[in-house]
């Protein structure tokens, strides 16, 4: 077997050194009734590389990849081009096959990239500090809600009707398990600021999103003012990190905590994971933050170096008093983010964001011109919702028959008849003018 270096002779020699009669001697603590004789039933035996590869190619072949034709889905995961060098960097053995940098003398590679990552995320969000990443945007959102309750010593969080429904669900789950009340305002295309009227003296935080799940961009500054007037925190959510190159940032809107999905930068769609959650906050809140933090320090000989720090917040030290049970970050995905961001720079990100907005505007222009279609999203970055005269699933299936993946039916995210005829569509720099024309052309045929 190709992954097992021991030879039968090695095994015998080693047993002799140990003084054990056989491998079975090591398993005598296992209750006899629970011991399995021979290979477990119901599973195949080992296979060569070629056989395994063939099986996976067959499975992959049953999936329609985003690059196989016009493709327009976003809704929390976005198709962007990732430079070839990014994947080469994350496949470096020294990054790929190492552990959490607990021994900083021999993990400066990982630690320095985390420090760069934290700096980049702080600057993108215009927040004071960022952590070394979370599992994904939705779990980052849930952790932000719980953190706000720790900071304010209150037990109520309020989410706008524009927060991604999966984020609402993840937040509700974690909060309710801890006895925190969760108020989620009814889904609404353009009502982030309704949170202003919802806040009260029992509220730990207001959670609003821009661009929200319908694509709507909102200046959320009034949420910050309203929250702070009640001594609550304002949590600003985003699911499309590329948007931060162009639109108003959480920091500029007065957010206390900013959370979002970083997949858009440096990471493939991967059918939903692994992704990389971004988490940033005001400096005064850092000791209540969840997750890993990397900090700068000096070595015994005075050289600059980096270490994991403030670990007294974390479960491996604090156990039942930790700020979170989180043990890993999303290290390799964060490296992908950092490497891609290092290539783009601020200039490239801003240009990329503009290209996204322009192609989405082109698509909106064409779709809006189709009689019977109503564009619902008033202000957007690269994603918008529109209503069709026919049920969304019929329309999308008809587009799919022409090899166009036209978006996601809103009712898949919001299982409510209100959204039956609504489609959520995103366009990125990966879409060409031809894609847009094909989409609009077929859409026009389909609804008539």
């Amino acid at each position, binding site marked *: 077997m*190709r*992954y*097992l270096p*021991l*030879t039968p002779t*090695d095994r015998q*020699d080693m047993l002799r*050194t*140990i003084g054990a009669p056989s491998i079975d001697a*090591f*398993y005598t603590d296992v209750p006899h009734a629970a*011991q399995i004789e021979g290979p477990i039933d119901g599973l195949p035996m080992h296979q060569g590389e070629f056989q*395994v590869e063939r099986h*996976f190619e067959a499975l992959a*072949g*049953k*999936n*329609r990849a985003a690059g*196989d034709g016009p493709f327009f889905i976003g809704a929390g995961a976005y*198709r962007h081009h990732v430079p070839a*060098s990014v994947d080469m*960097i994350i496949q470096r*053995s*020294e990054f790929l096959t190492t552990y*959490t940098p607990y*021994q900083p*003398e021999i*993990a400066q590679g*990982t630690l*320095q990239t985390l420090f760069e990552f934290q*700096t980049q995320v702080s600057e993108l969000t*215009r927040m004071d500090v960022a952590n070394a990443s979370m*599992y994904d945007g939705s779990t980052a959102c849930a952790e932000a809600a719980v953190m706000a309750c720790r900071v304010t010593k209150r037990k109520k969080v309020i989410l706008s009707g524009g927060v991604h429904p*999966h984020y609402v*669900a993840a937040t509700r789950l974690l909060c309710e398990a801890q006895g925190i009340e969760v108020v989620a305002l009814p889904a609404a295309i353009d009502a982030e600021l309704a949170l202003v009227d919802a806040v009260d003296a029992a509220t730990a935080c207001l959670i609003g999103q*821009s661009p929200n799940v319908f694509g709507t961009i909102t*200046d959320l500054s009034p949420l910050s003012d309203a929250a702070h007037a009640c001594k609550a925190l304002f949590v600003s959510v985003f699911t499309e990190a590329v948007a931060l190159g*162009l*639109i108003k940032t959480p920091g500029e809107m007065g957010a206390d905590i900013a959370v979002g999905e970083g997949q858009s930068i440096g990471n493939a*769609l991967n059918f*939903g994971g692994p992704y990389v959650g971004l988490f940033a906050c005001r400096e005064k809140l850092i000791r209540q933050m969840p997750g890993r*933090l*990397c900090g700068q*320090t000096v*070595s015994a000989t005075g050289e600059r170096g980096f270490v994991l720090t403030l670990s007294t917040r974390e*479960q491996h*030290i604090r156990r*039942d008093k930790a700020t979170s*049970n989180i043990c*890993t970050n999303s*290290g390799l*995905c964060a490296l992908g983010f950092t*490497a891609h961001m290092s*290539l*783009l720079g601020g*200039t490239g990100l801003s*240009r990329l964001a503009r290209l996204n*907005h322009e192609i989405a505007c082109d698509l909106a222009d064409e779709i809006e011109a189709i009689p019977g279609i109503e564009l619902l999203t*008033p*202000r957007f970055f690269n994603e918008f919702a529109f209503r069709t005269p026919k049920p969304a699933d019929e329309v999308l299936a008809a587009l799919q028959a022409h090899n166009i993946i036209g978006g996601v039916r809103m009712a898949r995210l919001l299982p409510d008849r209100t959204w039956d005829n609504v489609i959520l569509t995103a366009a990125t720099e990966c879409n060409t003018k031809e894609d847009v024309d094909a989409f609009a052309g077929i859409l026009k045929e389909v609804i008539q």
Partner: protein
Amino acid sequence: MTMLSEGRPSQPVSGTQDHYPATLSGSRGLLQREDLIFEIGSNRETGVDLPQPRGRSDRLGGVTRSRPVELPGLSEPQAVRHYVRLSQRNYAIDLGLFPLGSCTMKHNPRLNEKLARLPGFANIHPLQPQSSVQGALQLIDELASWLKTLTGLPAVAMSPKAGAHGELCGMLAIREALKARGELSTRRRVLVPASAHGTNPATAIQCGFVVDEIKADARGRVDMDALREKLRIRDDIAGIMLTNPNTCGLFETDIRTIADLIHEAGGYFYCDGANFNAIVGRVRPGDLGVDAMHINLHKTFSTPHGGGGPGSGPTVLSEALAPFAPVPEVVRDPDGNYRLVENAVDECAQSFGRMTAFHGQMGMFVRALAYMLSHGADGLRQAAEDAVLNANYIQARLKQVMTPAFDGYCMHEALFSDAFMADGIGTIDLAKALIDEGYHPMTMYFPLVVHGAMLIEPTETESKQELDRFCDSVLLVARRAAAGDASLRQAPLLAPLHRLDETQAARKPQLKWSPPAPNAIAAE
């Protein structure tokens, strides 16, 4: 000296001398000096060739960023060189034995990486029409069925994002089951052994439970008398969180009795599956009375650790907990088509809800299933046996000098205490001296139940030759520690950096790069 709570010094000794000659470049032979990207690149440049935008911004509604993004953009040669130089400051499995106990640093097969990058897996969107991702759903279903067969449990939740997230999944399922029984308000107490991973108590608290710690006995197992004592009052018992094999590298001999006692008390048995790699293919946790167990795909099933994630923590569930599993769930319809149930309806009406966006760590699923198919039922069993054999071989060789924490054979990891060391020398000194020998240190100061613990897990992917080389080095360093060789306290001397000051890092946190103050530049 400043110490962390587990007794580990967090500041280097003063007066350490650099053993390298100073160089003008700051590089040392093959090790190139490398600054932060912010000190290398220009904020005005970009290393990505993109067309010039036409200048449309009419649909933004004026909600724009007021300041440009002040981050440098590096050309491809600069960026590649930057990260390759940094990578060379990392230890990695591909470089040598990585004996971190409880972390299972085994070889990461490259076939898995290749397959995860097939466009049919890497470039599909989680919300595509389900008819266009049947292969992906089939893959999730196949992996689920392997996990169910290997654990002997009837259900598995695939969405947890990492081990600790899987723990959360299992404990939330227990919470939901108690809720369904109308006992959630009374059953609050979760028993956790003192030797548990820190995530266990932290998870129980996150689910609103109260943690009650049980001590270990002299054999490193759960103290059964203490357990029975804890169960004298049983109406408030929600369950137990137990790692098996446990964090001392030992199989819990009384596991069946523990399961029975917990069940009789009306609680559930959560098993931390971090060490499943020691028994996979030989023992099915379902036969031990387990109700829920997360499986770290990055430990048992070889997905890369990536410098701290991404992990993946599918969680198997017993008949009693299965109805409460989180959504989404992949189901196979009678017509052979696969379908995602994404909300708590239909088959999932009793689900406790959704833990995360989308459907779990697909990229890790591909890798783990590729590993399983490569090994097969026979290979997985052999892998577990070789892991256990390697650990016992290390234990047998090292106990010539070092003090085993407990008598008898171990499972997949060997645990030693610092009893053999001379006064003034600590576990950290031995660990850091191993760096100079070219090895990543073992897990140190964990589990907490052993003084100055050193937990060594070689995994099955080491050859006998590598093991011997490693043992020779550890023995050499251990003899120096036993003899009180004070120079150990300066180690490492041959790493890219000497010991770092963690106390200063925590006292005055500097968590991002800041441009030098303007007057500092003027002064230069």
